[in-house]
């Protein structure tokens, strides 16, 4: 028992590792703030492109989405981080992570938003157009607000996934929370920093998980 506390819940070690963990936490936060809005914007573009009548655009969108849904995020990150420098494209650790995550999350957000847009009855678009709104206005003011509302739980769930997934950035030596924790673990030869990182993730994501559950209940209640 004492050995367990000494190697997993050691407060002296925690005090030493704290500055490293805090720096890691900020990096994770920056990464999240960079990756989530970028992925969402990309997803919106993908979803809008999939509503056009042009066959080639639609086929390209389906190809893009299927490609990056089939690609394990870690493999994509490896390829971007270690493959692109051979083409003289140097993005740095943060840039590589941002690009890999953009490709991966934009396809997921795109699928979710497309499902949302398809769930809005066609009559809504027709009614909006007949009142004189342009196609763009009808999409922006009538269809999209309803579409997003319908898929809020899926959007939150995907965002949660993305934030958790930022931990794989540690494999390309970006000093985010998990990387910081492993560094601190190697420095102190003690597993406490890893446990602390786990707790930080838990504390930060727990409210989002509760929020998700509430939205899911509400959606089930509407059926």
């Amino acid at each position, binding site marked *: 028992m004492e050995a367990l506390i000494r190697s997993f819940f050691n407060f002296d070690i925690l005090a030493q590792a704290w500055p490293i963990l805090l720096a890691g936490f900020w990096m994770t936060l920056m990464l999240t703030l960079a990756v989530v809005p970028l992925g969402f914007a990309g997803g919106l573009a993908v979803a809008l492109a999939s509503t056009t009548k042009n066959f080639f655009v639609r086929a390209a969108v389906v190809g893009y989405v*299927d*490609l990056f*849904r*089939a*690609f*394990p*995020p*870690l*493999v*994509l990150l*490896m*390829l971007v981080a*270690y*493959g692109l420098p*051979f083409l003289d494209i140097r993005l740095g650790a943060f840039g590589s992570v941002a690009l890999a995550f953009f490709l991966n999350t934009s396809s997921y957000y795109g699928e979710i938003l497309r499902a949302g847009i398809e769930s809005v009855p066609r009559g809504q678009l027709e009614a909006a157009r007949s009142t004189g709104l342009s196609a763009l206005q009808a999409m922006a003011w009538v269809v999209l607000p309803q579409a997003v509302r319908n898929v809020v739980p899926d959007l939150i769930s995907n965002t949660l*996934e993305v934030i958790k997934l930022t931990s*794989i950035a540690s*494999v390309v030596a970006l000093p985010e929370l998990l990387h910081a924790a492993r560094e601190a673990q190697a420095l102190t030869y003690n597993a406490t920093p890893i446990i602390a990182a786990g707790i930080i993730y838990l504390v930060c994501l727990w409210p989002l998980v509760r929020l998700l559950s509430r939205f*899911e209940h509400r959606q*089930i209640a509407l*059926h």
Partner: protein
Amino acid sequence: MSAWVSTWLALSLVLMAFSEEIFWAGILAVPRGQWEAARSTGLSFLQTLRDVVLPQAVRLTIPPLTNRTIAITKNTALGAVVAVGEILYQAQSAYSFSYNPSPLLLGAAAYLILFIPVVWFGRWIETRFAWKR
């Protein structure tokens, strides 16, 4: 615990938590009237669950369950982090051995060959079991 077992256990636990949520949502999505009608015909609680509610609930859960399973299966690539000798790990070793990104590209191609059919299967499942109102 070997690296293989750790990876297996970690991914299984994650999938377990997600599928619990999906099954639970599926069961709640079956209208209450189904329960009440089944119970009033004399079925026991267990019979109602097994013969009336679960068949309807499982049908609803198939698309999200397929998607989640695909997502978790893809993440077997995470095994590379703890040195399980799966595709990514082998590709990384070959990459550092030869200092050439071709093995990485080949590994990526292997993942695509494995998972693109699975993604298509997922799409087919989604349309096949789409919620019909």
